[in-house]
């Protein structure tokens, strides 16, 4: 396949995307069924052509076609073939193409489920998604064409950035993109609701599973990224408040707020304009994240200036999408219906607390991420806003989230009695207090007040996670009760449980981890540290297809008994001349033993960083549980019923609650 075919397919996709948005939006405006139906078919066509373009680029990578500039810059004949596929999205141009493909994929999925929505609403959603596709296709074709040819192809390519040559990081960007781009769906729904000044909140129900799915991908992507940083960067840290991480964390925080705010909008018809604003914000932050990470702005703002076309386009596009959405919001949001009232102690209040905490957290992360960027942009130099800032802001907010998390699910809409709620949560309360007493006894003398509070609140969230389904069972003790608990209830409980598990892991690692840099001589004396005895047995040279390096063999003993042999590596990638560490890890649920190989110190000695990480696996296990919860909730039966029927049921429910 010639690369020009890919280029042509992208141009075709652009044409179809224009048609898709015009037919969708104008069709809805003119009430023209034929136009609206055609926009669906056109959207499917747009997906097909985007897929062709992506396939052509992938084939060029697999076939080492170095006549393409992008392939020559990011691949090499010595690169193993799975990484040649990953190299497709290894840099700016290909990532954009993946972005476009994923967006077309989500659009197709919405089209396939569009029959559940009112015709005009669905057409507007597809039209808005089409507009986003147009923007990205224009950007790619005019400033970042991956199909650009080299007149004289080099014999070999410059190889993929070694950082990306790792299974977790190879699939990390696509997962993040599924999440980022997935938020385009709630964004399009929110805009469609604004355009139509919808009086009915049926769209809020229809968009909930989409939001949960996008959030699921983002959650898995972030979890994977954190795990990767842990074993690859060699510091043993699992989160660095790095701008790249923050870029994915902000949409996650707002997306989490959106999921909870949507619950209020769907069930109570309240918080509508707030929900719309969150949907706009989640996607805007996703766009910002994509651009910050992929445009090289974060590495240096001056990279922007060297290619002003790209910088100007990015800014203009962001301004158009976000600005346009917010103009629409300013005009139409006042026309959206206001929700019913509620008392201070009610489920609405707790979901509001959740929203305020998560939004403030996202705002704080945004500030910390952009502030250095602004200084750099204004040529005031490069600075770091370090983890101290983020920890100082973030830890108290998350403690409050953990404290409140148990109440949201078990309180009634509109109003409830706090004494009754506390009685419902008596068992989790007793268990968490017992747990913290045991934890303090085990770790006597280490950790302070904040650690104790953190541990207690994490345990509280864990034990209280399933209070809602348990409460449902208590109310109805007949045989079918268990089966009648909806999937969304299980999903929520599992996700809340996961958050508690993550929090427990974070507290344990931060407070009770050991870390030490040791100088070890092969065959020399063992170092006793963290309750273990560590001995460097020897080193050997290793060689891969595109790297060479050293691998240490490090024996870890406890009470004289050999527990494990860690094999940390230090690799030098030959084409890119870049050094990478591969940590040696012995992973167990309750603790990791971690060794990263540093530098040779002379006299045969090597610096080795040794760490004991209690409960570190809980952090990622919790992340996966949260994602699992989101997935289960997305497949709740009520999202599969025809929308009219299910909305009628909710209206009846609401009327019942009001009575």
């Amino acid at each position: 396949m010639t690369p020009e075919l890919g280029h042509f397919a992208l141009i075709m996709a652009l044409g179809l995307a224009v048609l898709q948005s015009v037919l969708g939006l104008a069709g809805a405006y003119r009430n023209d069924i034929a136009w609206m139906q055609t926009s669906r078919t056109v959207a499917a066509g747009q997906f097909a052509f985007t897929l062709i373009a992506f396939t052509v680029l992938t084939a060029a990578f697999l076939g080492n076609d170095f006549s393409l500039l992008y392939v020559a810059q990011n691949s090499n004949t010595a690169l193993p073939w799975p990484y040649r596929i990953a190299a497709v999205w290894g840099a700016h141009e290909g990532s954009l193409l993946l972005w476009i493909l994923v967006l077309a994929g989500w659009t197709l999925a919405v089209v396939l489920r569009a029959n559940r929505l009112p015709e005009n609403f669905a057409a507007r959603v597809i039209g808005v998604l089409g507009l986003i596709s147009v923007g990205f296709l224009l950007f790619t074709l005019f400033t970042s064409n991956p199909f650009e040819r080299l007149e004289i192809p080099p014999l070999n390519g410059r190889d993929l950035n070694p950082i990306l040559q790792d299974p977790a990081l190879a699939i990390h960007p696509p997962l993040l993109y599924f999440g980022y781009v997935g938020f385009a769906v709630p964004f399009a729904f929110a805009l469609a609701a604004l355009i139509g000044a919808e009086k009915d909140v049926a769209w809020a129900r229809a968009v909930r599973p989409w939001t949960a799915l996008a959030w699921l991908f983002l959650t898995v992507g972030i979890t994977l990224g954190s795990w990767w940083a842990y074993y690859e960067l060699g510091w043993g840290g699992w989160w660095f408040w790095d701008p790249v991480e923050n870029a994915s964390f902000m949409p996650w925080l707002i997306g989490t707020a959106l999921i909870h705010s949507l619950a209020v909008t769907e069930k109570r018809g309240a918080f509508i304009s707030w929900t719309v604003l969150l949907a706009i914000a989640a996607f805007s932050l996703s766009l910002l994240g994509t651009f910050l990470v992929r445009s090289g702005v974060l590495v240096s703002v001056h990279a922007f200036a060297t290619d002003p076309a790209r910088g100007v386009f990015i800014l203009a596009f962001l301004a158009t999408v976000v600005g346009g959405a917010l103009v629409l919001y300013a005009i139409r949001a006042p026309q959206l219906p206001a929700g019913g009232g509620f008392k201070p102690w009610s489920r609405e209040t707790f979901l509001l607390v959740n929203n305020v905490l998560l939004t403030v957290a996202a705002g704080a992360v945004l500030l910390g991420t952009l502030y250095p960027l602004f200084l750099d942009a204004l040529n005031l130099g490069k600075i770091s806003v370090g983890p101290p800032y983020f920890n100082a802001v973030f830890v108290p907010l998350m403690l409050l989230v953990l404290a409140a998390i148990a109440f949201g699910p078990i309180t009634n809409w509109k109003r409830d009695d706090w004494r009754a709620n506390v009685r419902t949560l008596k068992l989790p309360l007793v268990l968490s207090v017992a747990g913290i007493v045991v934890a303090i006894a085990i770790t006597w003398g280490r950790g302070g007040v904040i650690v104790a509070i953190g541990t207690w609140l994490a345990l509280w969230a864990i034990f209280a996670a399933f209070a809602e389904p348990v409460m449902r069972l208590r109310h109805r003790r007949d045989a079918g009760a268990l089966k009648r608990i909806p999937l969304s209830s299980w999903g929520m409980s599992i996700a809340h449980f996961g958050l508690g598990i993550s929090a427990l892991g974070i507290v344990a690692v931060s407070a009770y981890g050991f870390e030490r840099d040791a100088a070890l001589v092969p065959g020399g004396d063992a170092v006793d540290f963290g309750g273990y005895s560590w001995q460097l047995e020897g080193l050997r040279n290793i060689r891969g297809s595109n790297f060479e390096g050293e691998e240490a063999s490090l024996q870890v003993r406890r009470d004289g008994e050999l527990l494990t042999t860690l094999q940390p590596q230090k690799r030098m990638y030959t084409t890119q001349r870049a050094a990478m560490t591969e940590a040696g890890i012995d992973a167990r649920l309750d603790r990791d033993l971690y060794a990263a190989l540093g530098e040779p110190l002379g006299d045969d000695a090597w610096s080795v960083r040794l760490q004991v990480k209690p409960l570190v696996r809980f952090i990622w296990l919790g992340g996966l549980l949260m994602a699992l919860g989101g997935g289960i909730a997305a497949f709740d039966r009520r999202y599969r019923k025809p929308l009219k029927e299910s909305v009628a049921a909710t209206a009846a429910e609401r009327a019942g609650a009001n009575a």
Partner: protein
Amino acid sequence: MSWRFAIPLVVVIALVAAFWRGLFLNPGEVPSPLIGKPVPEFSLPTLHDPALTFSSDNLKGQISLLNVFGTWCPGCHDEHPLLVEWSKSPPYGVPVYGLNWAMHQPSERAAAIKWLQRVGNPYAAIGYDESGAVIMDWGVYGAPETFLIDAQGRVRLKHVGVLTEEVVQNKIVPAIERLRAEEKQ
């Protein structure tokens, strides 16, 4: 139209305007109010030995650099090799002093000592500022930052951000040369 609903739009317009300015304008350095003034008076325990002190008096008598750093700051890791290089053969014999910013993290002292042991210690002396009070007096709002101080103990230049080969050659060294020329007059 209720203005309440236009607030997000206003916020985003302000953000975009700031980005736009960042793309096209190069307003250069905003001068520190400290420039030309005597260094703020301070006295801190040194990093390696809390019994010893590092004070504003150390910065008088000869031209010197003061570098604000912390192990939590990636930019400080980036510029560190350059400082080590500097200390091996200091241009015009200008020493580099360090100000370790702990940001209320008591573990910073041990971390900094360990880090310097590993990557080399370029500093003639290091003040350890756990509370950040001295940092505040110096008007530092992020790390790394580097000050050039003349022999009379006056702040003459402030560089915000990572020191690069380019910054050292085109900014720091010429400024030192100017100070030396001044002294000769």
